[in-house]
C-alpha cells in the first residue's frame, strides 16, 4: 500500500513540475466548462422559447373565449371563419407540439441544432413541413462543430490523456534508466499500471466534479437521474478503452516520441479517419434524400384530392374512416359540400403519413447501416450513445415527429367527428378542445 502511495505521490510531483501538462489540463477544464455552458445556454433558450409560445397560445385562447362570449351575447356577428363550426374552432385551438429539452442536454447538444423543437400543428400539417426546420444558425459554425461536453469528452479527453501519458515510461526509456527501475521490487507492468491509474483517477475526478456541478445547476439529478448514472458509467468505460489502448502502446513503446506518434495516430484513426470513411461510404450507399415523394404528395396528390367532386370525396372519407357511418351527417342522403370540404384534410393526412413512413424507413435503413459499422467506429457509437442519453439524437427527434403526427391525427379525428355530427361549438366546447390539446 505504501508503494502505491509513493508512486501516486511521485506522479503528482511529476505532474506539478510539468507546465505543459498543467496548461493542457487547464485548457481541458476550460473547454469542458465552455461546452457545458453552451449546453446549458441552449437548454435555457429552448425552455424560454417554449414558455413564450405557450404564453402566446394562452393569449390567443383568451381572445377566442372573448369572441365566443361576444357571439353568444349577440354583441358580435359571426366572422367569415365561423368559430361555432368545429373546423374553425379546432383551427383556432392552439396546439403546438414541443420537444421539451432534456436537462441532460447540458452534456450533449447532439443533433439538436439540426431540427426544430416546436411546431404549430394544424389538421393540414405533416411531419416534414418546412416550419419544422432547425433554428437559424451559421452553417459554417455548424460545420466546424459545436463545442459541447460530449465533443470535449469524446474527442479531447483522449488528447488530454495522450499529453498526460505519452512520456510515462517513455521518459525512462529516453534517458535510458528504465531497466534500473525494473530492477527494484516492482514489475514494469505494475508500475505502468499504477502510474496510469493515477491519471485515470485524475481525469475521472475532473470530469465528475464538473458533471456533478452542472447536473446540480440544470436539475439533472431530479429529472434524469438514471440517464446521469448511465452517463457516469459510459464515461468510465470510454476512458478505460483509451487508457487500455495507450497502456499497451506505452508498454511496448520505444520512447516518448514513439509513444506520442502512435497515440496520436490512433486518435486520428478512431476520431477522424474511420468516422470519415463510414460517413463517406454511407453517403455513397444512401445519398441525400431530396424528398421528391413528399413534395409530390404536398402538391400533385393533394391537388388530385382537391379536384374530386364532393360525392367522390364523401365515399373516400367513409372508406378511410368507417366510423363516420355512425354520424349524423352520414344518416343524411343529401350531400353537404361544406362538411365534406372541411374533412378533406383527413385524406391528405393519410397521404402524408404514407409518404412519411416511406421516408422514415429509408432513414432507418441508413441508420442500421451506420450502426452495423459501430464495431469499427466505436467513437461515433459512443457519441451517439451520449446523444441518446441527452435525447438529442436522431431518434429523439423521430419520437418528436411521431408526437406531432399523433396531434395531427387527434385534430383530424375531432374535426371529422364534430363536423359530421354537426356540433355547434360554444365557449364551453371550445374550452374542451383547448384542454384536449394541452
Amino acid at each position, binding site marked *: 500500500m505504501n508503494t502505491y502511495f509513493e508512486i501516486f505521490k511521485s506522479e503528482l510531483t511529476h505532474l506539478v513540475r510539468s507546465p*505543459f501538462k498543467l496548461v493542457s489540463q487547464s485548457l481541458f477544464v476550460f473547454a469542458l466548462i465552455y461546452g457545458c455552458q453552451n449546453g446549458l445556454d441552449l437548454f435555457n433558450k429552448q425552455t424560454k422559447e417554449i414558455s413564450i409560445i405557450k404564453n402566446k397560445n394562452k393569449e390567443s385562447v383568451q381572445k377566442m373565449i372573448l369572441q365566443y362570449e361576444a357571439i353568444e351575447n349577440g354583441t358580435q356577428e359571426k366572422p367569415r371563419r365561423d368559430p361555432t363550426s368545429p373546423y374553425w374552432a379546432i383551427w383556432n385551438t392552439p396546439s403546438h407540439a414541443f420537444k421539451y429539452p432534456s436537462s441532460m442536454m447540458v452534456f450533449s447538444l447532439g443533433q439538436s441544432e439540426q431540427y426544430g423543437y416546436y411546431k404549430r400543428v394544424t389538421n393540414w400539417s405533416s411531419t416534414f413541413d418546412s416550419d419544422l426546420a432547425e433554428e437559424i444558425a451559421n452553417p459554417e*459554425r455548424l460545420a466546424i462543430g459545436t463545442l459541447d461536453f460530449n465533443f470535449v469528452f469524446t*474527442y479531447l479527453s483522449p488528447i488530454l490523456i495522450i499529453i498526460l501519458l505519452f512520456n510515462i515510461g517513455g521518459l525512462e526509456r529516453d534517458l535510458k534508466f528504465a531497466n534500473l527501475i525494473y530492477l527494484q521490487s516492482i514489475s514494469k507492468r505494475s508500475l505502468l499500471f499504477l502510474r496510469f491509474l493515477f491519471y485515470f483517477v485524475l481525469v475521472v475526478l475532473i470530469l465528475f466534479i464538473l458533471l456533478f456541478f452542472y447536473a446540480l445547476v440544470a436539475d439533472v439529478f431530479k429529472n434524469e437521474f438514471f440517464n446521469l448514472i448511465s452517463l457516469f458509467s459510459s464515461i468510465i468505460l470510454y476512458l478505460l478503452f483509451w487508457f487500455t489502448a495507450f497502456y499497451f502502446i506505452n508498454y511496448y513503446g520505444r520512447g516518448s516520441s514513439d509513444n506520442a506518434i502512435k497515440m496520436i495516430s490512433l486518435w486520428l484513426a478512431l476520431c477522424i479517419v474511420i468516422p470519415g470513411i463510414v460517413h463517406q461510404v454511407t453517403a455513397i450507399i444512401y445519398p441525400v434524400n431530396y424528398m421528391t415523394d413528399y413534395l409530390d404528395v404536398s402538391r400533385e396528390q393533394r391537388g388530385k384530392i382537391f379536384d374530386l367532386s364532393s360525392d367522390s370525396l364523401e365515399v373516400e372519407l367513409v372508406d378511410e374512416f368507417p366510423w363516420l357511418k355512425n354520424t349524423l351527417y352520414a344518416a343524411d342522403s343529401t350531400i353537404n359540400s361544406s362538411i365534406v370540404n372541411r374533412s378533406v384534410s383527413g385524406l391528405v393526412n393519410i397521404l402524408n403519413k404514407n409518404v412519411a413512413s416511406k421516408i422514415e424507413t429509408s432513414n432507418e435503413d441508413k441508420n442500421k447501416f451506420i450502426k452495423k459499422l459501430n464495431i469499427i467506429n466505436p467513437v461515433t457509437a459512443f457519441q451517439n450513445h451520449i446523444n441518446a442519453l441527452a435525447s438529442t439524437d436522431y431518434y429523439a427527434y423521430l419520437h418528436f415527429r411521431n408526437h406531432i403526427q399523433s396531434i395531427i391525427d387527434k385534430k383530424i379525428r375531432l374535426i371529422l367527428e364534430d363536423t359530421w355530427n354537426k356540433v355547434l361549438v360554444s365557449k364551453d366546447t371550445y374550452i374542451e378542445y383547448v384542454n384536449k390539446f394541452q
Partner: protein
Amino acid sequence: MIDIIINEWRMFLRDKLFVFSTVFFTFSLLVVVFLGTIQNRKQQNYRIEAQEHVRNQWESLEAMNPHSAAHYGSYAFKPLSVLNSMDSGVNDLTGNVIKLEGHVQNEIVYSEVSQALSVSKFGKLKSSLILQYVIPLFLIFLAYGTLSSEKETQRIKLLVFQGVSITKLTFAKSLSIWIYGFLLLLITVVFQSLVNAIDLELSLRLMLIIVSYGFYYYIISSVATYFSATLKNNTSALSSILAIWIMWTIFLPKIWGNTVEKIHPLPSRQNFKSNMKEDRSKGIDGHNPRDKRREDLKEKILAEYGVDSLKNLPINFDGIVMQKDEEYGDKVWDKHFGSNYNILSKQKFLYQLSGFLNPFASLQSASMGFCGTDMIHHLDFLRKSEDYRRNLIKTLNDAHAYGGSKTGDWGWTVDNDFFKSVEGFTYVTPKIKEKIKYYFIDFSALLFWGIFITALIRFRINKNLVL
C-alpha cells in the same frame, strides 16, 4: 541550401517507414478523391433527377389560374459544385430543397445531417480531411526531430564547424518537409483534375487551393522545424508542436466559432418569423379586400385607366394587387433575411480574423470557399433562388393582371403553353473572381503567418540557441 534539401530527401528515401507512408498516403488520397467524385456524381444525378421531375410537373400543368400556379410553385434543389468532392464545406449541414411560391420567401430545408444518426464530427473522408488533418500531422512527425535529433547526436556541431549556416540549415530542413506535403497536395489536385472535367474556372479554383494549402504546409513544417531547432530534445519539440496542432485544429476553431455567434447573435426562428409577419401585415394583403392600401391602389389604377369601377377596368385588378403585395413582401424579406445575412457575414469576418491567431481557420475558410461550398456560396444560391421566385411570381401576376381577364374572374386560366414558356430555375456556381474579395483576409492571415515564421527562423535561430 539545395544540397541540404537533396541530402534530406536522400535520408527520407532510405527510411522504409517513410517510403511505406508515402505509398500509403498517395494511395489513400487517390482512393479518397475517387470515392469523393463517385459520391458527388451520384448525388448530383439525384439532384438533376429531382429538378427535372419538378420541371416536368410544371410543364405538364393543365390550364390553371395563374395565382393557383403561384401557390403550386416550384422547387429549387441546391446543386453541388465539382469541387464538393474535395471539400463539402457546409453542404451536409444546410438544407437542399427550397420551395419557390407566392406570398412567401421560404427557407431551405431537408439537410443531409437531419436524415440519419450523426456520423462524423469532422465530415466525410474527402481529400480535404486528409489534406487538413492527416498530412499536416505527418509533416509534424517528419519535422519534430529534424534538428533536435541532430542536436541529440551532436551532429549539428559537426555541420556548424563545416561552415553550414544554422538559419540555412533550418530553412532547408523545413523546405524539404514542405516539399513532401506539397507533392502530396499536387498529386491530389492533379488526380482531381483527371477524374473530373476541369475548365478554366475550376483550374483557377484549384490553383488557389494549391496556394492556400501550400502556405499552410509551409507554416506547419516551419513551425515544427523551428521548435525542433530551439527546444532541447525530440520529446519537447514533439509535445510542443502537437499542442499547437491541437490548439489550431481542434480547440480554437470550435471555441472561436461558438464565440462569434455569441458576439453577433442571430434571432430565434420564432422572433424572426413573428417580426416578418408583423411587418408583412402592415402592407397590402392580397387576400384582404378591406386593406386601406388596396383602396389607395384601386383609386390610382381607376384614375390611370379613366374608369369609375373595377368592373370597367380592361385589366384584372386582382393581379395588380397581388404583385404590389409581393413587392411589399419582398421589402419585408429583404429587411429580415438581409439582416440575417448581414449578421452571418459579420460572424464570418470575425471568424476569419482568427486566422491571424490560427492559420488553420484561414485554411479551412479558404478551402471551403475555393471549393464553392462555404457560406458565401450558399447565400449566393439562396439569393439567386429568391430572385428566380420573384421573377416567377411577377410573371404569373402579370399574366393574371394583363392576360385578358377581368377583376374578380378567378376562374380565368392560362394554358399549358404559358407554363412551358416560363423558364425553369438554373444555377451556376459564381465565378471565383466575383467572390475572391471574401477570401483576402484568409490569404492575408496565411501570408502573415508565412512571413512571421520565416522571420522567426531568420532572426531568432542562431548558433547559441541551437547549440
